[in-house]
């Protein structure tokens, strides 16, 4: 089954080669990914689209959180799942963007805990560390997050430790979910843990290759059986 790749991947992931699969990223970079033929499930070839036009604009708005709240949230997500020498993290995955969208819709019940929690972190930073959270050095930010996890701060819903768990869950969802939901942008989360991507089927050979399969960078909704756009109905 030949299928057009409608995804916007026009460049290899920014991650550096990882110790556990030293050759994989280089192979991808060499192949340039775009224009290469990626092996799909059950041995089918998924022809990737040829030279694509310039990368489409990425639009981001804030649906429920304020700009100041998201500034704090971005840092918290980065502390949890950092961009570091091992590659991109929650920041590149746009976990905070995912969280804003989730809080505006399916996870609206968590919105109050985020509003109160983010304000309490900002308040703590100003009151006890003398400056806005965003302007503290990273060690200071990290120690505040640790105090949050250890339930040592006041003013959170349902508690400091409870808000830490909520925050961590949302940051993980935003980093490793299907990119349709606004996180895991450019598949940085799936590449991070060497998940080779959603396939419509997996052959025994695919399973044997496992994490050594070239990542196909497919959202579930890149596939005709799953996407709900009318023209793609299987």
């Amino acid at each position, binding site marked *: 089954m030949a299928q057009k790749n409608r995804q916007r991947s026009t460049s290899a992931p920014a991650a550096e080669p990882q*110790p556990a699969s030293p050759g994989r990223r280089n192979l991808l970079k060499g192949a340039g990914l775009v224009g290469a033929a990626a092996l799909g499930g059950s041995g089918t070839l998924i022809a990737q689209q040829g030279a694509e036009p310039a990368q489409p604009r990425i639009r981001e708005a804030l649906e429920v959180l304020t700009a100041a709240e998201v500034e704090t949230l971005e840092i918290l997500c980065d502390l*949890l799942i950092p961009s570091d020498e091992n590659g991109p993290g929650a920041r590149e995955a746009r976990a905070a963007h995912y969280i804003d969208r989730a809080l505006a819709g399916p996870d609206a019940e968590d919105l109050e805990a985020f509003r109160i929690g983010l304000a309490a972190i900002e308040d703590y930073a100003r009151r006890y560390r003398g400056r806005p959270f965003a302007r503290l050095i990273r060690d200071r930010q990290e120690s505040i997050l640790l105090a949050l996890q250890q339930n040592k701060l006041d003013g959170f819903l349902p508690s400091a430790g409870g808000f830490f768990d909520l925050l961590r869950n949302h940051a993980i969802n935003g980093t490793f979910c299907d990119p349709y939901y606004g996180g895991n942008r450019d598949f940085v*989360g799936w590449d991070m*843990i060497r*998940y080779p991507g959603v396939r419509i*089927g*997996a052959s025994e050979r695919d399973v044997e290759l496992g994490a050594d399969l070239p990542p196909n960078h497919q959202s579930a909704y890149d596939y005709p059986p*799953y996407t709900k756009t009318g023209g793609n109905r299987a």
Partner: protein
Amino acid sequence: MPRRLAGADVAIVGLGAAGGIASLPLARAGMKVIGLEAGGWLSPRDFGPDELRNNYRNWPQAVQKAAGEAPTVRATAADRAVQGGHPMMNAVGGTSMHYWAQSWRLNPWDFRVVSATRERYGPGRVPAGSTVEDWPFDHTELEPFYDRVEYAIGVSGQAGNVQGEIDSRGNIFEGPRRRPYPMRPLRASPFTELMGDAARRLGWNPFQGPAAIATEAYDGRPPCQYHGFCNRGGCHLRSKSSTAFTAIPKALETGNLEVVPYARVIRVVTDNDGRVTGVEYLKGNEHFFQPARVVLLASYTYENVRLLLLSASAAFPDGLANHAGQVGRHYLSHHQGAPVTALFDRDLHNWYGLPAQGAAIDEWADDNFDHSGLDFIGGANLWAHTDRRPMSAARMSTFGQTARNWGSDWKAFIMKNADRGNSSYLQKTTLPYEDNYLDLDPEVKDPFGLPVIRITARYHDNELRIARFAQDRMEQWYREAGATRIIRSGLGNAMGASTHAYGGTRMGDNAETNVVDRWGFCHEAPNLGILGASVMGTSGARNPTLTAQALAWRTADYLANNWSAVAE
């Protein structure tokens, strides 16, 4: 006043795994059947390999009536009951839309726990306080119905005992079956081979467990493509043998089944003589009375019990079919928790696995081993399976190897180990006890103001001893396979709301200790049948769905063959 509808021969309350099965033999026998389902229809186009939606957002497109009536839970009568979640879903096909689809027959021992234990070990070995009874029949009585369900919906597996001939590629402890499964088992994988080889070195007999998943083209449905996301995911190919794609469409083909979606049954109605006359249900803003000659309750254990208790009447002041005070008794949540989790030093190749694809060990289940020197009866089936998904993998334990579960060290750990962790599924014999029961919560209500079910139940010493024993065996198995780190979870206390909830309307010949008779009809209300695991008095050490389905077929078959005796 509810609007009175035209009468039906049979009204089935709930078209899930059990009710969906029962609709087929009844419709084929020419009965006019109304299927009242709280959820709606879903199609294969509603399913996708989307972990956020399947596993974290709880299938938002399904009507979660169940979520509004989730049971409250407390360990003992001295505790305060707290409402948690409900593990089941509402849709045509019910939870069989997205279950793991493991489709076991119970082993022969599970049908006669009391007498088999006495015969082998003498008196005094059944734990004090347990209300366990032998089933009113043994496994040979249910075998023909297991067989019918396996072939009607399509179950794949490797037989271990065909008419007494043992085949070590399958479960050598299963009871004799008349013929092999209709399809070969799910395929092996590098991980199932790793675990299988380790088991054989230990002298155990590993095998791929049975699954209601097509492995070959079956009855117009294509085989499994192993893309994963099967754990709480519906199958876009219909390879998972949900009743929504098997029994229910076949029943509809007869023209004798009418499905009423979004129907919320609130009461089973009885006349002054105590005969059931039909059910009341709400649909949108409307209130209906559906008359029926026979009613089959198939709404899952909690709702079966709740509807009986909510249907108190002049003839049944303590709840329908509850003169003997047995409704809600002999309840148990299957002990499926207390897993062992392992870390390996190599990738396990589980990114495209299924919860129903794995290696099973039955040596330590039921009475398959000598308990003479042990302080418990029963045991556990050990299940090592291949399900692995990115969002849950990122939540894996770091086995004490990082100081925190966040930051650069943690990130480096999951980058390396996301496909190197595995958590076992240990299903254990769980017994009913005098002090474990369901009743109506005195305070917590559903959105219609009707009380929800309250679970008062805890695991007793027998379950906790099995759990420890099973963890020992599982750790041994993982270590033999090369696991470098092991975590053993707590052994458990309160019985929470479970996908494996048994009892509450137990089946047995003694009307003083059981709600339904050996055919599944209420001792006190003979034209009311009950379907699902609420009639089961023992758990077995394996998933209950196929047994609930075989019993549902048997009850429906009995009704079709004895119509006038039951309905008139």
